[in-house]
């Protein structure tokens, strides 16, 4: 079950500059583990300490946001296209709540 994974520029430093990976995985969570196996450190940029998707990371399977599908358990099938997309955010003033600083920055 080979999937095409699109890696955006901010995360390529963790994939050896690869912009695209072709991997086999049964679910999105398995896919992250598979990428981590080949590129140690990648998972920490996508998942938080509890293993959940970071607030400012979005993962799409084809055109569907996995937060509205099965989360990290979203099944993958042959030919699926997975896009990992760091969010784009900012604002006029600092929010009252602490900002969850993106782990891929700096």
């Amino acid at each position, binding site marked *: 079950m080979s999937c095409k994974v699109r890696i955006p520029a901010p995360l390529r430093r963790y994939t050896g500059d690869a912009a695209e990976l072709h991997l086999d995985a049964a679910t999105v969570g398995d896919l992250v583990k598979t990428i981590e196996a080949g590129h140690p450190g990648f998972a920490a940029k996508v998942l938080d300490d509890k293993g959940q998707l970071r607030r400012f990371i*979005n993962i799409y399977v084809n055109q569907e946001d996995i937060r509205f599908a099965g989360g990290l358990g979203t099944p993958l099938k042959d030919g699926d296209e997975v896009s990992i*997309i760091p*969010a*784009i*955010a*900012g*604002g*006029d003033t600092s929010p009252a709540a602490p*900002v969850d600083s993106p782990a891929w920055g700096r």
Partner: protein
Amino acid sequence: MNDSAGLLLTAAQMREIIAHCRSERPNEACGLLAGRGGRVLRVYPARNAERSPQSFLIHPDDQLRAMSEMERDGLEFTAVYHSHPTSDAVPSHRDIQLATYPEALNLIVSLKREPVVCRAYRIVGGHQSEVPLAIEKEAPDVRSK
């Protein structure tokens, strides 16, 4: 990435961006700009998922759609634009902290007073520096690549 060059837009593109920013007031407006070598060829207005006068989060569906189209058409992710409805066109602490795409410049539109003020910045690694913002009159033909 064009380190020395700034952002080049047509007057029509700039009008579209400012109109979008005004239409979203009092909330912040946001969007993506695509092009080549700092010249903007396409404007992608996006939904502000936070619908806030003090913050923006580009709706991820809009982000995916725009970035997929850029990739398909061989365009660069030139810049992010957003408005500051009541403050100056200067990156806020949050703008700097959350800047995630180092290849993209940041265009800020201040609606604090008329006429509106637009300024462009490069924000990398927690540091911001202003870059030139140029407006040209004639629209390039986007279809002739």
